[in-house]
């Protein structure tokens, strides 16, 4: 690796102060799995200083708060996989976390880091979008909370300004327990990058889809929602055919590229299948009560 400076932040406040001090020259290290892999073989010059926030205790932890499920940005994927709270109120988050990288990277990599890399194939994004998650951002002028969807701008580019820091992810209280499922398809089963991933959630009201949310990864410059497919489902009776059709509509909303991993056409085919399966998975998670009403 090329030489760089290093400084460790004690907490988020300290981190923000350090980011303010170094400005453009700073890179944030959370788990480090992406940052180090990037810095090792990049032809670009190294950052002036790496701000290591991995010891900032206030950025860690999973808790139920008045706002909903609060996941500190430094929470590792493994912690999400093993969290009893997550399994209770939003198990799809664990489904998405357990297929990220391998055990070793899940033990280091963090949810905040995964979101901040802002690569379209990230596995944390779709489920959180389906939950309509919010993110809290700390900066020199205080904290603000924005929808997660506003974080993503372009591949490897978020809406955060220089000096700002992602501190937490919140699944709003209203969406806890919402039946949600995640699907991923890669070139192999273990340690795979997503060719396509998808998450879907919906409530049912008298047997009809209500507030359906569909999110797709790796098929657009950022993780995206599929509003047309959502609109199609909304108010429609729950059925396998509707789920399949929603998948087909989502496929038309995806804007995948052809690269060496897969063609755009194949990715569209996968979107249709994965959305259908995610919807079916969410339906599996719906309470018997909801299902009874639907039948």
């Amino acid at each position, binding site marked *: 690796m090329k030489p760089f400076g290093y*400084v*460790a932040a*004690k907490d988020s406040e300290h981190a923000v102060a350090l980011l303010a001090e170094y400005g453009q020259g700073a890179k944030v290290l959370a788990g480090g799995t992406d940052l180090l892999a990037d810095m090792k073989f990049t032809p670009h010059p190294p950052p002036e200083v790496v701000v290591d926030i991995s010891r900032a205790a206030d950025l860690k932890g999973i808790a139920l708060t008045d706002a909903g499920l609060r996941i500190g940005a430094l929470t590792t994927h493994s912690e999400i996989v093993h969290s009893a709270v997550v399994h209770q109120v939003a198990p799809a988050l664990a489904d998405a976390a357990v297929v990220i990288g391998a055990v070793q990277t899940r033990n280091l990599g963090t949810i905040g880091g995964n979101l901040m890399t802002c690569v379209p194939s990230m596995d944390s994004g779709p489920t959180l979008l389906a939950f309509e998650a919010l993110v809290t951002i700390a900066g020199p002028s205080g904290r603000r909370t924005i929808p997660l969807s506003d974080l993503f701008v372009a591949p490897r580019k978020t809406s955060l300004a220089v000096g700002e820091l992602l501190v937490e992810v919140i699944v709003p209280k209203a969406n806890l327990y919402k039946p949600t499922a995640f699907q991923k398809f890669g070139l192999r089963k273990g340690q795979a990058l997503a060719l396509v991933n998808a998450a879907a959630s919906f409530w049912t009201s008298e047997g009809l889809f209500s507030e359906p949310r569909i999110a797709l990864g790796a098929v657009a410059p950022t993780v995206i929602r599929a509003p047309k497919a959502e609109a199609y489902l909304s108010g429609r009776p729950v059925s396998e055919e509707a789920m399949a059709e929603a998948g087909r509509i989502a496929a038309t909303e995806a804007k995948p590229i052809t690269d060496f991993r897969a063609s755009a056409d194949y990715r569209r085919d996968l979107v249709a299948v994965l959305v259908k399966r995610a919807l079916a998975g969410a339906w599996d998670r719906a309470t018997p009560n909801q299902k009874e009403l639907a039948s």
Partner: protein
Amino acid sequence: MAEDLDVLDKTRIAPVDSLRRADEDLRLPVVARPSTLPLEPPLVPQVGEQTHAVGLRAQRPDSRDHGLGLTRYIDDIALPGMLYARIKRAGVASARIKSIDISAAEAMPGVMAVLLGREIPTNLFGTSIVDQPLLADPIVRQAGDGVAAVAAVTEQIAQAACDAIKVEYEPLPGVYDAIEALKPESHKVHGGDTNVYAKKVIRQGDVERGFAESYRIYEDEYYTPGIEHAPMEPFTSIADWDSNGRLTVYASIGRITLARVDLSKTLHVPISRIRVIGTIVGGNFGGKNEIRHEPVLALLAKKAGRPVKGRFTRVEEFVASTIRHAFFMKYKTGVSKDGKILARQIRMILDGGAYCSFSETTLGKACILSTGPYHVPNSFIEGYVVYTNKTTAGSMRGFGAPQVCFAYESQMDDIARDLKIDPLELRMKNFFRDGSMTATGQVLHSVKVIESMQNAVKKFGWETQS
């Protein structure tokens, strides 16, 4: 500045006592205690306890060291004063080097030696055709070709020095497809009038008559791609000279005798002055069977007067070592009504990449094996290896056999389905037996293909399944 803050922080957090203790700790030797060598006896019986050897599930002599992490692979060896080498790769697949400016690299603190291809006494090696330079000079024929090498006190500095070397290339036409390479108008990777550099023909009987007598004829094409060996241990070597001008090379290489000859030829050093020590190889699969950078390391070591280690990055392991040949295969097979193979005509084109390496051996094995473990009375097999401006293809586990097996066994199933004969029965009708004759006219002994099928079918439960 960054470091200042850090130290300040620590002082504030840590009581002075613990800092003092940390200082004491610093004075401890850094090697681990001998507790890592268990007193536990090995699991196998001790010397003199076993009375037969062949057929025994004996423990591997290296397995305890493997499990304890004590096996000394080449990268775990460091010699006093050792430098680290990096090789600058061309990154373009077909070009002429117009100029190389190494002045910035040479001026970097910590850089001890820089080497160019023209400084190597004989800058060519190869196992059959001697066509591969150690450092391209002046023609680059594959993107992974090295163009210059640096030895420095750390790998980091060696890499920075490589980055600082400026190379000016004149782009040359290139050929990146084996079928294209066969065309008369294609770019000739090594000059001359053809890219074909190895050819093999096997003829037995009369294929045309065989086809004429056939009930059905099947014609199919198959393709298999280039494959990387991907040993977990990247290719690594150390070169060290003594004061008498004797060279010792430590390398993770499977053929030390050949390596010594190649070192002698490229460096113009008598064999008696070269010692090659093959360390435990961390995975080979055919990818570590010839020299890669050892003469370069030796010359860097000579220039710098220090031992030099060169370790491939994972990317170099892909682009600068060899790969499995991609195969284009045409199979034409004539069979009788009851499923006996009467004739087989096979044509194969191998993508050899930029240099020959073990291509001739691979082609030979592929052709000899291409009819499958079946008696084929009439056969005509022809195979060609062509140069392309792609990564050099060389030896890899199977030497052409997996490629042709994919073809002949795929076609075998298709024939069975078409003739409505059970695929096992079709194979059984055609399998070699003791005394069968191969396409090269060899009479076989010790043939157990029928037994292997019977065993597999029984163990798998094939009969009970359908």
